[in-house]
Structures are given as structure tokens and as C-alpha cells.
């Protein structure tokens, strides 16, 4: 979970890291008043769950309460990288001598926490460091030893600050490390950490992310500070995504959800995790136009697959369906088949006359195939690769759309294509003789 700057700074404050004076406001009027309180001049900062605010115009200096009002009005209307600005932090204007960078995160290869420090802090840190990696000093931490004073000393010494500032920096380094460990942060970053003209070290910005998997032991005290769990995606979920989420949450067993709206014409019931990624890639690579992404795995009950299939099949613009999942060892092929068929029947769709490419394999596959046969759905087993199933589905959709262009109604086109794709000719055309022979044999 990513925290807002003002929330991140609440944590820094708790750990005694020096901060500028600041007031959180939600309206232009409040901003004007806050600036007055701070002495008539202040920085107006957009509170938003993304970085690069400065570059996007979300950080402005107000030289008067009047100006603060105007700037706040503008900033509150902004979206940065699609994220809405939820509030404005009115902050004491620091007299900056140097902008430093300090962060604590995980190094996946060293499998330890790593701290980074640089004198190239500020909005251009990444560009500067890419050109000159020697501007960053890195220190790794054995989790059992944790922070040791000499490590902070080494890190601070890299920047060669005046003695008092060096001391203050060492203390900030140690405090930030402790915060990172105590709060299970995946990232605790101060950029810039400011050296002021009068020699003080002050955290001008803060970006903290707390690991979702650690929320079970962090949530309570975060809530105590008024910091609530939140989704990390910028855009509001679409109606389809909301309903799919509701359906998935209706039962704790397995997953039949994680749906993402793509607005196209090929409905997708795909799984599980990696299998969905692999299938979806292939659809896009073959030039397909998917209606949705989703994941079906972890052994969901029939009713959840049914709910998801119904949403996908009745999604506006959907003209055909791809059901494709990796070889299941835990989820059941027959339960997925049952869910899909039931959804069709409930929507008044005759499965035998609907264009669907169905590829399923794994546990209870024979039972699954029996259901599909009963309702006249052509299915493929593990011999057909997932990308090959995707290719068949993409070609199926192309045929439907061609027929529509020829002036046929969607229903006519669907009916005709539903029959044609069951022929050997179609499979041969799309996948070649050799593959077609192999995947069709005995079906």
C-alpha cells in the first residue's frame, strides 16, 4: 500500500526525523489560511499516490494567501498519471542549500535490505544516476545484525557534509532504517532530503510503501494513525470490473475474477495465473481484440465460474468466447465447464450454436469433456498449446466480423462461424496440417 506524502511524513515524525512545518488542507480557503499561519509564503503540494508531482505542476510556491488560494484551486482539479489529487499539503518554504536522496528498500538478488544515499536528490535523481552511477552509495544489511552505527557513519561520510549536518544525517539514516523494519515497508524514500542554508537536515518529501502481505500486522496501528488500506490502481473500476470483483468475493474458495476490462469483442475465461498471462499475451500478439482479462484458478466453485462467465458473455460488444486454462492439478476442469455451460443456458444461448474455442485439461478432465460433448461444444485437450487456442479464437472472431461486414446480422454470423470452427478445415487453416492432425486426433 502506497502512502500519501502527508501520511509518510506522519511516520517520519514518529521516528523523530526533522520535517518542515506543514498543514494538510482540502479547500482553497483553508490553504490561504494555512499560508498565513506559515508566515505568508509556503509550498503548495498535491497529495496524490504517484511520483513526479513536481514535474507535472503539482508542487508550487505561493507568495501570498491569495496566490495559495488560486494555486490550490488549480491543483485540486489535477490528475497526475491518472491519479486524483485528494488534498493539498501547505508546507514551510525551506531555504535549500543541497537536495540529497535517501532510501531503504529490498534488493531481490542480495536478498537483504539495501539503503541508498546520494547528493543528487531532487526531481532528476534517476536521470543523474543513470548517467553517473557513482553518485549513489549503497549499503546492504544482514537482517540479524540490522542497523549498526558504523554503517550510518559510512553512508553519511559519502556525502562529506559539515560536521553538524553529518551527525544529523547519520541519525536520519538510522531512524529511517528502523522505520522500514518496524513498518514492513517495501520502500521508504526521502527525496529530497534537504540540507538547508543554515545547516539543518530536513525531509522535504517522503514516499513510503507498506507491503500488502504484511498488512495483517500493520493495519491496526496504521488505522490508529488514520491511515486506511486502499487500492493502488489509478482508475476507478468499470462496472464490469466491479461486478466481477463482487462475484469473486461472494465465496472465499478459489479465484474466478481479477477481471480487467479491455473493451474488445473476444470474451475470455482464462486461467490460472501464469496461464492467463500466457494466453492473454498470445491473443494480443495475434492481433486479437479481447473484451477482458481474468483469472480462474485455485479451485473455485461452479457458482463463481458461472457468475464470471455470465458477466463476460453478456458484456456489451462480446461476440465470441475463449475458454483456456493451463493444465489444472488443483482446480477442476469439470467445474469450470459446468459454470460456463450454465451461464450460457441461463442467458438463452445454445452452447452448440455459440462461437467458442474451449481448451481445458487436468483434474476431472474426462467429466468436463463429457459435459461439453453433451452440449455440443467442441473442446480441445492438453495437446493444443494455450497460444494455439488463442490463435484459433482470434481467427474465429475475425470470421465473425467479416461476415458482419458482408451484411449479416451478428446472430447469423455467430451461428455460421460456430459451425465452421468445428471443422477440420478451420483448424488446418489456422494451425497447419501437422498440428491440426495432432490436436484433433481422437476428439
Amino acid at each position: 500500500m502506497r502512502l500519501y506524502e502527508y501520511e509518510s511524513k506522519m511516520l517520519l515524525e514518529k521516528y523523530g526525523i526533522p520535517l518542515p512545518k506543514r498543514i494538510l488542507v482540502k479547500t482553497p480557503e483553508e490553504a490561504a489560511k494555512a499560508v498565513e499561519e506559515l508566515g505568508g509564503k509556503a509550498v503548495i503540494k498535491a497529495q496524490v499516490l504517484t511520483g513526479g508531482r513536481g514535474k507535472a505542476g503539482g508542487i508550487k510556491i505561493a507568495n501570498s494567501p491569495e496566490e495559495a488560494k488560486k494555486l490550490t484551486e488549480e491543483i485540486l482539479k489535477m490528475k497526475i498519471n491518472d491519479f486524483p489529487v485528494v488534498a493539498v499539503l501547505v508546507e514551510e518554504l525551506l531555504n535549500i542549500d543541497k537536495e540529497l536522496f535517501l532510501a531503504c528498500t529490498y534488493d531481490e538478488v542480495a536478498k537483504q535490505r539495501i539503503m541508498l544515499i546520494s547528493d543528487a536528490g531532487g526531481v532528476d535523481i534517476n536521470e543523474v544516476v543513470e548517467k553517473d552511477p557513482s553518485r549513489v552509495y549503497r549499503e546492504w544489511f544482514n537482517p540479524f545484525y540490522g542497523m549498526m552505527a558504523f554503517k550510518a557513519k559510512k553512508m553519511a561520510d559519502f556525502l562529506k557534509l559539515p560536521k553538524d549536518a553529518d551527525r544529523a544525517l547519520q541519525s536520519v539514516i538510522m531512524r529511517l532504517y528502523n522505520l522500514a523494519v518496524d513498518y514492513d515497508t517495501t520502500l521508504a524514500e526521502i527525496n529530497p532530503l534537504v540540507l538547508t542554508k543554515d545547516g539543518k537536515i530536513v525531509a522535504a518529501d517522503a514516499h513510503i510503501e507498506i507491503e500488502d502481505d504484511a498488512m495483517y500486522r500493520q493495519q491496526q496501528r496504521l488505522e490508529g494513525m488514520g491511515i486506511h488500506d486502499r487500492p493502488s490502481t489509478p482508475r476507478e473500476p468499470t462496472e464490469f470490473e466491479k461486478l466481477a470483483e463482487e462475484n469473486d468475493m461472494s465465496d472465499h474458495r478459489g479465484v474466478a475474477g481479477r477481471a480487467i476490462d479491455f473493451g474488445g469483442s473476444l470474451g475470455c475465461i482464462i486461467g490460472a495465473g501464469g496461464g492467463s498471462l500466457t494466453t492473454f499475451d498470445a491473443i494480443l500478439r495475434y492481433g486479437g481484440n479481447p473484451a477482458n482479462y481474468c483469472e480462474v484458478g485455485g479451485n473455485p466453485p461452479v457458482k463463481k465460474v458461472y457468475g464470471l462467465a455470465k458477466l463476460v458473455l453478456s458484456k456489451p460488444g462480446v461476440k465470441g468466447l475463449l475458454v483456456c486454462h493451463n493444465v489444472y492439478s488443483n482446480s477442476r476442469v469439470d467445474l469450470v465447464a459446468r459454470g460456463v455451460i450454465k451461464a450460457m443456458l441461463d442467458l438463452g444461448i445454445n452452447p452448440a450454436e455459440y462461437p467458442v474455442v474451449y481448451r481445458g485439461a487436468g483434474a476431472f478432465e474426462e467429466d468436463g469433456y463429457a459435459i461439453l460433448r453433451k452440449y455440443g461444444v467442441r473442446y480441445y485437450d492438453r495437446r493444443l498449446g494455450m497460444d494455439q487456442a488463442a490463435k484459433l479464437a482470434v481467427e474465429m472472431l475475425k470470421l465473425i466480423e467479416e461476415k458482419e461486414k458482408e451484411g449479416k446480422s451478428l446472430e447469423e454470423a455467430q451461428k455460421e462461424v460456430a459451425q465452421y470452427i468445428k471443422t477440420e478445415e478451420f483448424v488446418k487453416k489456422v494451425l497447419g496440417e501437422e498440428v491440426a492432425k495432432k490436436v484433433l486426433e481422437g476428439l
Partner: protein
Amino acid sequence: MGILIDENTRVVVQGITGREAASFTEWMLDYGTKVVAGVTPGKEGMKVHGVPVYNTVKAAVENHDANTSVVSVPPRFTKDAVMEAIDAGIELVSVFTERVPRSDVIEMIQFAKDHGARIIGPNSLGSIVPGKAKLAAIGGPTEETNKAYTPGPVAVLSRSGGMMTETCSLMSVNGIGQSVAINVGGDPIIGSMFHELLPLLEKDPETRAVVIYGEPGTVAEETLADYIKEHGFSKPVVAFIGGGFVDKMPGQRFGHAAVIVTGKKGSVEGKKEALRDAGVLVADYHSEIITLLKEVLKMK
């Protein structure tokens, strides 16, 4: 001899009385794996599918000579369970549990390093040497496992458990068996990354080629590429990375620090490029793995 495990491996299952652990214990036994003991604190004396349960790993090791553990306990107890196993002398710990916080994961990995033990996972469905033994839930019941996994010359390392079974199944229906298949785990920080398993595969006479299944995020594939470039690897490597479309999705957020630590790594295109650059054969479509394997194994 297979890699990591074989028919002589003696397994203890920590958390054996849990629903999932009990069912994969049955599958492991049925497959012929020697599951010699289980551990659930407070349940000593019980039996699960005939396997005796103890309160501690120490007792399981003392009474049954267990040398390998499968850990399937709730996330908040996982770190301690892994360290308990290593402290009792277990050399290989396969961690099935998912959603273990990273700060716990780095501690258990450090502990393993300090004691010369190896961790697979967390968030690993398991590993298998077809025909000999398997750990945790990989492949499901024996009938399903046998449809997907067959003995042969190719080692498969995968970040996804489901796609490992899919990949091996597709290989098997095309007549290509596996020397070993290891689901390294789906988390960002894991005990054994691809490049850390490569030395074992280099030494294994039965392994003639390696298949890698990668995913977006982390630097696992890039690190593998760097390793091959630096240390060389004498056997052909075929890789497929799922989820390329994620590269183009909005809402990917990285802090400055993440970018500095990993460079611009993490994207699927970047991973493929790095692997190609290291001489790895990269499949753009999953079924291309078969075509590439047939070439390198000279099967046609």
C-alpha cells in the same frame, strides 16, 4: 541421481494437519515419496495418512532421519517453521506458503545461508523428479502428475506452478520428458533463484537442456542472463516469459529507489533481450518451447 530429491529423500511436512498439506501429503505418498513424518505443535501422536505427527522438527529428524521439509503453515508462522527445520539439521526446505512478508523471507534466507541449507520458495507449489519423488502439491494426484510429468532429459525451472505443469505436460505429449522440474516460487524474494540452481543442472548428467518459465517483475531473468554471460553454461537454455502485455499497462509504479536498485529491469521485453543476449533461445509463444527443444535435442 536426480537433482535436489530422489527416491531416498526423507520428507517431513510441517503443518501436515492442515487441509491442503494433508491432501498433498497423500499425493506425495502415493507417488512414492518417502514422507516419514509430520509436524504440528500440540498434535503429537496423531497420524495423517499413516504419517506420524510430532510437535517439533527435532523429533521428526531424531525418529525418522528426515532430511527435507515441506512447509505449509500460515504466513505468520512460516519464518519460524523454516528456521526450526534448518536448526534441526534439515538441508532442503520447500516453502509452500504464500503471502509471507518479505522481511520474514530475508531472515529465513539469511538463516539458511548461515547454516548451509537451501530454501525453495516461498510460494512454491513444489518440485518433482519424474518417476522418483516430488515435493508438495506439484502435479496434484498421481494420475494427473503422470499425465503431465514424464522422465527425460530436460530440466524445467518456473516462477509459476500452474505453468510448470502446463509446460511439462506439453513437453510430455510431444515426447520430451523432464530430469527435474522446480517451481522456484512466485514471490519477489525467494530462496533459490534461476541462476542459483544452474550449477546443479550443469553438473547433472541426466539434464541435457533447460527450460525457464519467467514472468513480469523482479530481476530473476536478467540475473540469470548475467550469470550465464559471466560463468557460461554448457547446455542449451530455452526461455518463455509470460505476461508481456503488462509492460504496456498503466499504473505500474516504481519509486526512484526501485529504479536505481534494478536499473530499468523488470519489463518482459527487457528480460527477453537480456536472455537472448546471453545466448538463451527465447520463445515468443508458449508452444514454441517445443519447437526449440526439438531443435536443441536434435529430435527431428
